[in-house]
């Protein structure tokens, strides 16, 4: 027996994240580390619990091992509940067919039974590859007030980047009259954030008819939203103001980490009324040694710093030995930077060792020339 929920969330976490190259060889994109102590998926999950949504289906597909282990039963986000809570929804075999998730819409379609268990009035569709803090309850309020079939969260992007996004063209009252997926000539700069609230019946109807259409690529942005508009359904945009970043590329992942630095970082991680939760790994406090120098950096639990760290974000358990330099870089869990090694403008994935006097990356390189060191790399001067 399941209890009715007003709104449940479906979190698309199956993305391969192929533009993150080595960082997603063995890990699904939502389980990629961010900001010292987080994984990307901490943001949508924390947003859910901070918005009063306690039932979340997490759809996994690509390399789910690290992701599944990380989310577990949802306890770090208070999503281990007697009624609802977090459920991992991998693709499965049925007696008629078995399918991998073909697209975002198909993934939800294959889990219509999960949705129906809770008989929700609304379904919130999220993706697992954005860094942002958002109160979905406000979006739901607007959805209810406007009586929309679907509400699309939008964000203002620089007009020159608008052609990379799904662009919502709206009337004055916020209703959407046109949705263009990656338009060559965008008419405005209101980009879809890939966050939708649907009234449940409409969602299920459209998913079922989309599934019957063999020409469809079963994607929300390409198929479902345009179909709703073509049929004259009421769509509204929900303009979001605040920090939001798609971290689907090496450059944007690096940039988003750098956004945590400076005197007034645009993303506040210390708001006690809107915490970002993450799985904790019982590490000791960080220790800063005698000759260390740390400037404009974020350092996490378990780090031991004896060298120089500048403009960088260090995850838990990183050791920077004496004479080593880490600059403009993102260092993930348990990396060791040995004596006199130098790391410039790089992302070093977890458990790697940068050997004595090794040099990684180029000082002053720009965001399009970030050096990546894959998980578990053991680098010594002789292997360079």
């Amino acid at each position, binding site marked *: 027996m399941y209890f009715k929920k007003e709104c449940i969330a479906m979190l698309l976490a199956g993305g391969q994240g192929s533009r993150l190259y080595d960082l997603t060889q063995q890990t699904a994109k939502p389980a990629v580390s961010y900001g010292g102590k987080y994984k990307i998926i901490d943001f949508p999950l924390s947003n859910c619990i901070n918005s009063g949504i306690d039932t979340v289906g997490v759809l996994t597909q690509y390399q789910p091992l690290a992701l599944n282990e990380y989310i577990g039963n949802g306890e770090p986000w208070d999503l281990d509940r007697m009624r609802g809570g977090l459920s991992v929804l991998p693709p499965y075999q049925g007696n008629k067919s078995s399918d991998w998730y073909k697209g975002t819409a198909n993934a939800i379609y294959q889990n219509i039974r999960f949705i129906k268990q809770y008989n929700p009035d609304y379904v919130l569709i999220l993706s697992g590859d954005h860094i942002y803090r958002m109160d979905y309850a406000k979006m739901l309020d607007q959805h209810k007030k406007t009586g929309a079939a679907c509400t699309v969260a939008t964000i203002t992007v620089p007009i020159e980047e608008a052609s990379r996004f799904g662009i919502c063209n709206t009337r004055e009252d916020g209703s959407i009259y046109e949705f263009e997926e990656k338009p060559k000539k965008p008419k405005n700069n209101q980009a879809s954030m890939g966050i939708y609230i649907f009234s449940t019946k409409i969602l299920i109807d459209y998913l079922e008819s989309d599934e019957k259409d063999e020409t469809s690529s079963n994607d929300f942005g390409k198929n479902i939203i345009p179909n709703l508009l073509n049929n004259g359904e009421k769509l509204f945009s929900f303009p979001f103001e605040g920090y939001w970043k798609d971290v689907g590329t090496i450059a944007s992942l690096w940039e988003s980490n750098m956004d945590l630095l400076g005197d007034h970082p645009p993303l506040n991680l210390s708001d006690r009324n809107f915490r970002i939760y993450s799985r904790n790994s019982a590490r000791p406090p960080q220790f800063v040694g*005698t000759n260390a120098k*740390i400037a404009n950096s974020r350092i996490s639990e378990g780090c031991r710093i004896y060298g120089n760290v500048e403009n960088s974000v260090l995850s838990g358990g990183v050791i920077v030995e004496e004479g080593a330099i880490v600059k403009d870089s993102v260092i993930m869990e348990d990396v060791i930077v040995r004596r006199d090694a130098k790391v410039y403008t790089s992302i070093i994935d977890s458990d790697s060792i940068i050997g004595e006097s090794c040099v990684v990356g180029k000082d002053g390189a720009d965001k399009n020339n970030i050096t990546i060191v894959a998980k578990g790399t053991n680098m010594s001067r002789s292997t360079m």
Partner: protein
Amino acid sequence: MNAAGIIFSNLNQDTISELTTDRTLAAIPFGCRYRFVDFCLSNLINVNISNICIVANYNYRSLIDHIGSGKDWDMARRTGGIQMIAPFQTSHTSDSKLNCTHLEALCNMKDYILEFKEDYVIIMDADQVVNIDLSAVVDSHEATGADITMVTTKIREDFSSRNRRIMAKTENGKITRILTSKTYTDRAPEMCINTFVMRTPYLVNLLNSAEDKNLTSLTDHLLNTYEHANYFTYCYDGYVASITDFQEYYQASMELTSSDEAKESLLWRKDAPIYTKVHNSAPTMYSADAVVRDSMIADDCVIEGTVINSILSRNVRVAKGAVVKNSVLYWGTTVGKGASLNCVVTDKDVYITDGVSLSGNKNLPIYIEKKRKV
């Protein structure tokens, strides 16, 4: 492991009055992000002990808040877990039984101890900060066939404390002498770190006879009986911070900044992590002008000034131009612009106004109480 753990949260707390006005001794913060009790709990958990009692008698609100369901120690269990034992009145007991001594508290919880399915009981006090493999202690207890095994540490000849400690002399591990002393004595060169192992039936017998003879002090019982009993020590050779007053507390905190042995032994053991309540705070921010040396720092701090030889808890702010030296700052402490602290311990949410300068001495550190604005 086949043992139950009983942690005493505040038997010796009167001697650290500064830090225990608002909290029980077990809840005293130590090492940036921990409280004393975390070390006891983690020692037990790291050898798979899942039946743990914490005996409290007063001022235990912050301890209960810290422990919660025990989830952060993986102790939210259907079977076992962490049980808080607080004193209570019934129609047939007088109000004097406030768990003021080991034996009184243990007698009060005797019915509960009778239900223990574990063969051994480990009794520990929260003021001994140590990261010790308790399975080795129990193995030694079994091997020697002791009635009681007391964990000790060898003390230096220059040792002296303001409070009496239990000291022992042994021959091949067997105790030949027990006495109490404030300083080193060659008559008894091992100091008890208030951790005891015994078989559960032995403890029950001990409690029965304590009730008959109206005994309340475990120390007195040991002193009176050792000559005819089979007591052994397990002499631990790792780092121990044995903290019985404010000065010892300050010294142990400073050792964390200066001694690698203290850090390696207490906090940096990969096979034996210390667990504590999780607060989901953000990584610490070091600004462009920060100067930090020989310091241990928790999450969610913002450091714009200078921090040397200090311990900073969660959510501490050190503003531009501020200098913090040889100090211990509890969570929520703010050090204003240009302020300077030397040899100061600030309790929770202390606010040091811009430009204020406070300096204690290594032998007489200044303590600033909770929420005080200076």
